[in-house]
């Protein structure tokens, strides 16, 4: 709770400090706020002071673990985005504040105990992102992304609320523990209201995490949004959504697991295939990343489908590894700074900027799941847990990993290749210090984080 307040206040502060026209001040405030938030979250976890229970929010181990990486990712995104925020000094504060507000939403999503906070958290998470997606106002694509995200998002909100209403109708409660208890007590004799509500909420979650057939917004929005926002969406928003997803489905609706798991499995498979297949022929980088993220959602869904004590950790590990790869790649894309965001712009990167290229390769291979990078361990944890219950699902996921390697490898080769001789040589990209730091963190995490995960 303290963390939430600290972060919110640092957001507010950066909003106001922006008037000072000193972007670094904003950055400092935001970073300080994030770090302070992270520390307070951690101390709370570490000293276990009672996991302070507020009406509606509960910072338990789950929330703290997920919250910490959410804060970490936000910090990385802010750091990496700082150089592009600087281009519009009058808006630096707004952008950073919106990201921080969104983060508070994410924290709510991770710690809610009733539907009120869940719903509000979701909206706090989403609304700044609707705005941020369109923050590149000169760019039609950005606006279009914003519109699409908003339209589909609003629709999904409607669906979610409808679902909540049904659940309320079925259980007469908004509190998760009461709903859980209700479902367990009345096992087998549930009203259809609960089922329909569950399916509606499921749909909304699938929308939020970007699973087929609710995924259509995500390539367009990832593609159109500014890089930073894409990174933030891929790392933090997805994390928040998955956290809530797991909270609700692995705990609250656990009693109905037999009902929703098969449906979710099928959708997970669909998601993997759709993501992978669509990614094959992409020529724009963020779009590729979007489809790849859809695929990864498919894999991550396995943690929710599988009910085991380790699911939460596996999900955490998966998102952890995925987030670093994505943020690393987004940072690289920002460094390359191609107007049209073509994949082609990555050509020969490793020769121009060896370290940047190296991180790009690490990120791509990690996404592909090549050991010993962190992505492999994330996947490995998920799959090896799932294989005990759904071997066929894991087999399909593995096939998809195989398909996925096609486009990651294509990009890796691109990064490694020489530039065409007939075209003018791209000059060496300048890498600001902050981005260098982010890249270094990502590289370290990707290389050595994997071992940590399975420790």
């Amino acid at each position, binding site marked *: 709770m303290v963390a939430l307040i600290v972060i919110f206040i640092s957001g507010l502060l950066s909003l106001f400090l922006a008037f000072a026209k000193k972007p670094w001040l904003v950055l400092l405030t935001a970073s300080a706020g994030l770090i302070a938030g992270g520390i307070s979250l951690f101390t709370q976890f570490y000293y276990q002071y009672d996991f302070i229970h507020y009406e509606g929010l509960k910072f338990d181990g789950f929330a703290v673990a997920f919250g910490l990486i959410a804060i970490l990712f936000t910090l990385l995104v802010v750091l990496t985005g700082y150089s592009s925020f600087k281009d519009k000094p009058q808006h630096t504060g707004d952008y950073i504040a919106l990201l921080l507000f969104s983060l508070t939403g994410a924290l709510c999503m991770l710690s809610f105990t009733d539907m009120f906070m869940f719903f509000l958290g979701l909206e706090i998470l989403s*609304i700044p992102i609707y705005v941020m997606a369109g923050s590149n106002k000169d760019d*039609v694509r950005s606006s279009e992304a914003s519109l699409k995200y*908003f339209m589909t998002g609003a629709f999904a*909100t409607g669906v979610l609320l409808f679902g*909540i209403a049904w659940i309320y109708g079925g259980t007469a409660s908004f509190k998760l523990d009461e709903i859980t208890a209700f479902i367990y007590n009345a096992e087998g004799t549930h009203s259809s209201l609960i089922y329909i509500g569950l399916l509606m909420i499921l749909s909304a979650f699938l929308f939020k995490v970007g699973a087929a057939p609710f995924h259509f917004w995500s390539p367009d929005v990832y593609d159109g949004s500014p890089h930073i926002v894409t990174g933030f969406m891929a790392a933090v928003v997805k994390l928040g959504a998955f956290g809530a997803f797991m909270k609700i489905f692995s705990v609250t609706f656990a009693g109905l697991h037999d009902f929703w798991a098969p449906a979710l499995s099928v959708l997970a498979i669909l998601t993997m295939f759709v993501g992978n297949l669509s990614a094959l022929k992409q020529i724009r980088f963020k779009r590729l990343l979007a489809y790849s993220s859809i695929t990864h959602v498919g894999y991550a869904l396995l943690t929710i489908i599988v009910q085991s004590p380790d699911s939460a950790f596996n999900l955490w590990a998966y998102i952890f590894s995925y987030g670093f790869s994505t943020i690393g790649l987004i940072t690289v894309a920002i460094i390359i700074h191609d107007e049209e965001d073509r994949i082609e712009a990555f050509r020969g990167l490793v020769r121009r900027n060896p370290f940047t290229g190296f991180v790009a390769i690490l990120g791509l291979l990690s996404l592909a799941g090549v050991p010993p990078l962190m992505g492999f361990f994330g996947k490995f944890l998920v799959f090896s847990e799932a294989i005990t219950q759904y071997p066929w699902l894991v087999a399909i996921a593995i096939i998809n990993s195989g398909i996925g390697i096609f486009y990651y490898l294509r990009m890796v080769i691109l990064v490694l290749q020489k530039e065409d001789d007939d075209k003018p040589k791209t000059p060496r990209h300048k890498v600001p210090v902050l981005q260098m730091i982010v890249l270094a963190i990502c590289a370290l995490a990707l290389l050595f984080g994997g071992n940590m995960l399975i420790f």
Partner: protein
Amino acid sequence: MILASIFESGVSIQFYIVLSTILFAIGVLGVLIRKNAIIVLMCVEIMLNAVNLLMVAFSTYFGNGDAQVFVFFIMVVAAAEATIGLSILVLLYRNNRSVDIGLFNKLKG
């Protein structure tokens, strides 16, 4: 006060369930069928109102005020969403001179 409870007088909760379902479906239909972004937003509002209606119906039926508070929050969010939505539309209109969502298909594939 005036009316003890509507559900005491023979109107079943099913009636409101069906009513709000129909309203929701109409909202969905509108979202799908209209191309003017503003109208689409309005249809989303219809969906939200369907939810509100349902919530209130359950609230009354259960004699529990929580759902009405929830409806209150839904309205709050709806207002915020409408603000954002409309500003996005303004933004779009400035660039495109139109709010026809059919025109926004640069991003695809």
